[in-house]
């Protein structure tokens, strides 16, 4: 029971991070029908940017109040990662819109390689560790085989994710930008006939996806205390799996998929074998694609109209 509770906490926090990344995949797919393979690396880049801000604040500027440092680092990372993703879309994807279907996909793979190599060269190939800023944790149960704990980082991850998703959901459902986004998703040409600047809306979609990924990157850095140039691939691909599992194009699906993948991965490690946890996660991708191609909350391909 204690083990179960502990793994539940770990799974949910990991799942929250996957969910935040998955939204970026699903939004971009929704609006321009493209799988943005570079999104995992955008996440990795955002963690590095957060790390740089963190070092700048603590070592150069001498700020010692860690919660403030983290908030500032996350905000800085959101801003800079957004600029990066905006530029990537402008340079590597937009000119290929309307080209053959595989063109932007290939370009995205190129961007993915570019980003991880760029970070490797600029930051070096070794892990970049930081010390855990919120070392303390809350002990939930005593006795038993071991104490179930929830670190402050875990609490922060859950709270930040829920708050962010609520705000994001409101934006999509009830603001003019959200409506324009959904309009472009459903009929780009008609949206333009109604005065929606499609290019601007697509740009904003990349910016929002990057900002959410940057929050995920900052939280990841806070929780695991380490980042490496190759860390875009696995979390990125798992978040993509989450998006597919939830139903690509569906926002609630991305979050649900993220949670499920996080839980499956942690429970698999705890009860079966850590070595096979990634295989478990990716088996889900294959199984979903074969048996449930439109995902848990996605809509079936065929549609009236």
């Amino acid at each position, binding site marked *: 029971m204690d083990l179960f509770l502990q793994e539940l906490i770990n799974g949910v926090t990991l799942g929250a991070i996957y969910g935040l990344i998955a939204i970026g995949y699903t939004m971009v797919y929704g609006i321009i029908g493209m799988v943005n393979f570079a999104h995992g690396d955008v996440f990795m880049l955002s963690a590095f940017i957060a790390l740089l801000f963190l070092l700048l604040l603590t070592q150069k500027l001498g700020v010692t109040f860690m919660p403030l440092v983290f908030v500032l680092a996350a905000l800085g990372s959101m801003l800079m990662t957004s600029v990066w993703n905006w530029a990537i879309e402008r340079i590597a994807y937009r000119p290929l819109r309307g080209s053959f279907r595989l063109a932007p996909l290939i370009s995205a793979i190129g961007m993915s390689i570019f980003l991880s190599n760029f970070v490797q060269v600029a930051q070096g190939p070794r892990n970049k560790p930081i010390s855990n800023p919120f070392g303390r944790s809350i002990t939930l149960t005593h006795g038993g085989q071991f104490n179930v704990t929830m670190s402050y980082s875990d609490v922060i991850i859950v709270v930040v994710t829920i708050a962010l998703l609520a705000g994001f959901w409101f934006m999509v459902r009830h603001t*003019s930008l959200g*409506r*324009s986004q*959904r*309009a472009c998703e*459903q*009929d780009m*040409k*008609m*949206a*333009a*006939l*109604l*005065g*929606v*600047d*499609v290019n601007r809306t697509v740009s904003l979609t990349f910016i929002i996806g990057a900002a959410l990924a940057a929050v995920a990157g900052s939280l990841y850095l806070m929780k695991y205390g380490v980042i490496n140039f190759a860390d875009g691939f696995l979390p990125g691909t798992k978040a993509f799996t989450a998006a597919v599992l939830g139903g690509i194009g569906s926002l609630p699906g991305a979050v649900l998929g993220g949670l499920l993948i996080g839980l499956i991965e942690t429970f698999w490690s705890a009860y079966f074998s850590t070595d096979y946890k990634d295989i478990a996660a990716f088996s889900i991708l294959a199984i979903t694609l074969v048996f449930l191609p439109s995902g848990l909350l996605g809509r079936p391909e065929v*549609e*009236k*109209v």
Partner: protein
Amino acid sequence: MSVEANAKPALLEIKGIKTYYGNIIALKGVDLSVAEGEIVTLIGANGAGKSTLMMTIFGSPRAREGQIIYNGRNITKLATHEIARLGIAQSPEGRRIFPRMSVYENLQMGASLNNFAHFTEDLERVYTLFPRLKDRATQRGGTLSGGEQQMLAIARAIMSRPRLLMLDEPSLGLAPLIALQIFDVIRDLNKREGLTVLLVEQNAFGALKLADRGYVMVNGLITMSGTGKELLARPEVQAAYLEGGH
């Protein structure tokens, strides 16, 4: 042969427009004008290029030659959304309702064009014109019937209070009675609010009766033009577009 567009200056003036799909030419040099406050109709057989002209005015597809002047301004090279923001609204071929948005949200999309300037008032107005839409306000656009979608497409177009309203086959798929009702709505908007209308129609009889002037398009070219009455009286028009005799 052609009748000069009144004394009023043209709100929309199309000169020598050529549009291609790839290498295939769809419009072979079209001239057409619509004066402020007029109802102008464009009729022609399937595949003549009517919808292509409607979309070319919005720059999608873009004309390869010729000029489109709106309100004295050359809009031939403007982006589609910029053209829309000049006060031109279209209910396009195929209606293009946003299928996963509610009726209400579809109307909001129309109103966003003029920043919701008179939203509640305009909403009331379209609900009065099409009470059916009010009943279905929360229903998803994709689940409406064809006729209801047609009403929604027209309602969405007038939510922005356009200066020029373009309708591509608004009576398509509608029961004759509803089609008449739509024509009444168009006439009303024109008479009461001075709305300028460019109307593409299969129902040539209804359209020519409604319109001040009309154009006949054949194979990407305008072959005849004149007042609605004149065109109705022409034997070629009667033979080609009015058989069945309504």
